[in-house]
């Protein structure tokens, strides 16, 4: 069952990537301007991408619904509440209204991203999804706005990080997951290389094209994730948490950025270069550093308390 489930999940993710790639390559092969497709007026295609995200989540749940990972007891309810509150508060603190932490070469610091990944990895996909979805909404509400598509994307990050619970052996498939994340990051970086003038929509200064660091931040992030995966290969939890977390970031942020084509009327290039890269790249780097730190601290406390 576990093996079948793994192939199914990989199949769903690859299917989504293939559809995305087809929509990139078909217009290009017909010598069409790729800014003219996948646009705000093209309702069916916009909904196709929102639908893909929902189908992946529902598909994963449906085919693994017998798995204990989906059980919600008292423990899960409490950690859903704690995780969402923590994520909401940290998002609010670091969105520029309380702590004015300078961004480095357009790479904004968003340490809260470690929370849905950590809670998903420690307490399961339901806790991870809830932490990301509700936590991001709380952070938005505290700041005075709401962006449902980004909250759902954050939920996906926690959900994917928690999917490790669906597999008996955490060590299996880590390299495949890393390759999948790398494909996602590579596609986005190629789009940036082809459109270097596209401006950053996620970090100040707003009206500037992406710096080289921001442009290759997804690749840097993946390199850090890969380094941790292999350097800490003996500490399975550290390796597995960053690998599953990185896949979560690629899929979650990718979902939110593509949904913005519909919501904000961005072109495909703006969504990928202006939103996905500056959001996913820094998040990958921050998650790769902060999640292992939090995980090691948690395990030390767990050892002390025996729970």
């Amino acid at each position, binding site marked *: 069952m576990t093996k079948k489930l793994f192939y199914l999940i990989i199949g769903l993710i690859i299917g989504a990537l293939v559809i995305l790639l087809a929509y990139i390559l078909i217009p290009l092969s017909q010598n069409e301007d790729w800014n003219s497709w996948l646009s705000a007026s093209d309702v069916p295609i916009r909904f196709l991408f929102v639908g893909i995200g929902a189908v992946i989540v529902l598909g994963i749940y449906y085919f693994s619904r017998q798995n204990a990972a989906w059980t919600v007891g008292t423990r899960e309810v409490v950690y859903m509440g704690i995780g969402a509150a923590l994520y909401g508060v940290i998002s609010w603190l670091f969105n520029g209204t309380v702590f004015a932490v300078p961004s480095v070469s357009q790479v904004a610091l968003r340490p809260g991203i470690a929370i849905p990944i950590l809670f998903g990895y420690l307490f399961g996909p339901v806790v991870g999804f809830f932490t990301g979805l509700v936590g991001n909404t709380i952070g938005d509400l505290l700041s005075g706005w709401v962006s449902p598509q980004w909250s759902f994307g954050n939920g996906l990050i926690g959900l994917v990080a928690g999917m490790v619970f669906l597999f008996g052996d955490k060590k299996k498939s880590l390299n495949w997951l890393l390759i999948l994340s790398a494909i996602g990051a590579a596609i986005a970086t190629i789009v940036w290389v082809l459109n270097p003038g596209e401006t950053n929509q996620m970090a100040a200064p707003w009206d500037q094209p992406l710096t080289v660091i921001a442009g290759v931040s997804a690749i840097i992030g993946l390199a850090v994730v890969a380094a941790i995966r292999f350097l800490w290969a003996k500490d399975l939890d550290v390796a597995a948490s960053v690998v599953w977390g990185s896949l979560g970031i690629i899929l979650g942020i990718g979902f939110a950025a593509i949904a913005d084509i519909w919501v904000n009327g961005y072109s495909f290039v*703006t969504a990928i270069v202006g939103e996905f890269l500056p959001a996913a790249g820094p998040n990958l780097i921050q998650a790769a550093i902060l999640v292992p730190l939090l995980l090691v601290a948690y395990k030390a406390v767990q050892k002390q308390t025996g729970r």
Partner: protein
Amino acid sequence: MLVTWRYRQLGTIIHRLDPRTKVISFACFVLAALSFWDLRFLSALLAFGVFQIFLARIPWRDIRRVWLLIFLMASLFSLITFLTGRGGFEFYAVEHEITRWTAPFRLFGWQPVIPVTAERIAYAASQFLRIVTVTSYATVIPYTIDPRVYGITFHRLGLPDKFAYAVDLSLRFVPTFARDFAITYDAQRARGYELERARGGLIAQIRRLAPLLVPVVIQAIVGGEEIIDAMDLRSFGVRPRTWLMSLHYHRIDIVWIFFSGVLVLGSVLLPMLGYGGFWVPPFLLK
């Protein structure tokens, strides 16, 4: 730095609405706003959003900072759209040039030239209005819904008991964790911790966050175990839970929901009938 929820208990018509009505109408209004690209329709929807804020008597000083930020972001997004011309290509095949702006400088021998067209101006304005309109609807939620009723609101909207309670729990924890962050931040600063220091590279900056993040997160997780014990001892989840507060729809709620429904229906039907699409004001085409 302690977080206090932005809610203020006032007796306005918006405050008196059932929180479920506010959540349902928010979803309907946002859907309606996202269905149109016509400046006239968007202006009407924005006017209604601002009218709601006035009805709720939300003081300008409370929302000034957020609105200035949103205005800045929306202006920049629209300016970028206008300068690049991207995003609007699917709405118009022909552009009516009003003037052509030539940059008074050269970059490596290249002089930027930006065609100022009627279509680009109209599309950038539509994008700006859409963002600001959605913000106007979102503003009402945190200022007019009592945080104590979020749990029962979502339960009555169909969320299972456990998830509704988790929402309730998370909202109760927000002020606590904000206070924990404030205490930890002050304690670390007393030890020479400088969060805002720009020195060091990206990795160094991220690592600098650990002394603030790790104690609060780990303390929260450890504290969670005590809450789990307390809830288990009270047989949480064994039977459907009861809620201390109750919600009731009144006539005004029915009217408000009906109006929201009509708005959504209109936002679906009008574009199908050819209304509400991209529109360029005639005076720009002259």
